[in-house]
């Protein structure tokens, strides 16, 4: 699971209103090399919940010097975009779980795949 994906994921346990962002507990993390496409990253940024990204990167110990707030005019700031690229697309959780911040329910991540299936009593 990449952090770009994580940014979209939310807890959908019945009754939960503050299920985002999911807290990450990782037991295995990989950092891959992914081709850098500055335009792609730049266009992704407005779609992100920035603070959720920073928090996730932090939880994985991968934040490095990613700023807590978006820098102005980031579109042309290649250094900044590279940092964003790294946390969004190169950091990957292979094993661990995602925890609902409200209910505590844990969704396992195994072999890179988060299992978000709910059981009958959770829907």
């Amino acid at each position, binding site marked *: *699971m990449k952090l770009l994906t994580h940014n979209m*994921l939310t807890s*959908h346990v019945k009754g939960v209103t503050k299920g985002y962002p999911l807290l990450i507990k990782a037991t295995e993390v990989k950092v891959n090399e992914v081709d850098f496409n500055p*335009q*792609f990253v730049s266009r992704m940024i407005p779609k992100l919940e920035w603070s959720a990204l920073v928090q996730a990167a932090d939880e994985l110990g991968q934040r490095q010097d990613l700023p807590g707030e978006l820098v102005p005019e980031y579109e042309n700031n290649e250094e900044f975009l590279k940092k964003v690229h790294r946390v969004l697309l190169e950091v990957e959780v292979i094993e661990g779980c995602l925890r609902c911040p409200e209910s505590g329910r844990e969704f396992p991540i195994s*072999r890179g*795949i988060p299992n*978000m*299936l709910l059981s009958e009593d959770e*829907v």
Partner: protein
Amino acid sequence: MMEEAASQLERDHVHSVYDKIAPYFNDSRYKAWPKVQQFLLDLQPGSIVADIGCGNGKYLHINKEVFKLGCDVCRPLVDFAWSQGHEVQMCDGLHLPYRDGCFDAVLSIAVIHHLSTKERRIRAIKEMARTLQVGGRIMIYVWAMEQKRRKFEKQDIFVPWNPNPHSPSGFTSEHAKPRRRATAQSVSEAIDNADKHRKVRSTSSVADEEEDLTCATPQQSTQRLWFFSRSLDSVFDFGSLAISRSSSRDLSTLSSPTGENEGNQASKRGRGRRLIKQVSSFFLSPPVIGSEEDVFDSVTDLHKGQNDPGCNNNNNGTENQSVSVSLTRECGSLALPDLVPFQKEHLKQSGEEREGGLQGKEQQESTMSPQGSEGQVEGSCLRYYHVFREGELAELIENHVEELHVKQTYFDHANWCVVAEKVQLWKI
């Protein structure tokens, strides 16, 4: 209760079937449909797209300028998609784990026809609409009732999955897609281990399945390869639940596709699900098929067929090929969602079974549960479909999903297709 029956049906005749047949999906015949491909290629660079019900991820590699993620309930298929380098999750279409308005586009290709009630199909569409950004678009493909060569006579059907639909001969070797991750994926291994000279076809593509249904081999030429059912929506109209005696006799012919041993296990299992089974058995009840005369004719055929040496017990014939060939040969004489080879066993017991239509159903269900251990696909893979009439999908959206506006509707490769746009709803 309808909800339970619906999800039970989908577990048995969608989820567990795909779990079993997943290894066979990953072959070279799986191509992306051009119009879906074009929809993806037309997206603005930097878009985020979700393929809901992505299966083995065949659409997830299209268009490097957009971020794609996929999800599905079928673990083996999702594993395979991941092995190809895609971002995928396990989830179910009625409860999407994505925040509101986070996608620029959504795909739902050959998915919602597996939902067994109208209400669930609407909910699935609404869920997808929820995750779409205003201005974002969804493309939905569902199997059409009206096909080029035929029209399905009913909308709610079971389609047996045939690993080898065209002919027993004429195999070509398959090449598994290259793995882009180092981790060994069990599904890829299954492909590697399978007989490489086997031509395996997945039947989830209707265009290909059309050919399957008309049968390539002479012996199959008059066979019908789908079975009718009753819509769950109509089962809960209690007038229709007053099933006649003749139909409970028909229920008794829903045989156990497994041998006696498993029959015993089945009767121990599932007693608690009696009510759901009862409902489901109405759902599978023969009287909806053509006329009653057809059903009785089929039963008579079975009596004749009892001594037919061609009737192989499924437990004996262990090759997928012979199972599928005998299944398709036998099933053609029968309009029931059933496995003929075991009918003769069941008919012997028919005295007890008469009142025990439920037991028959239990035994049938025991076959439907995953038996992946041998790595073989039992002939019992019947997938449930609700095939759509012309205009039905667009109407469903127009009448029930006000947050979507239909932009295009068309017919493509035996599917009805809709592209719709998410709109802002103004609430006063």
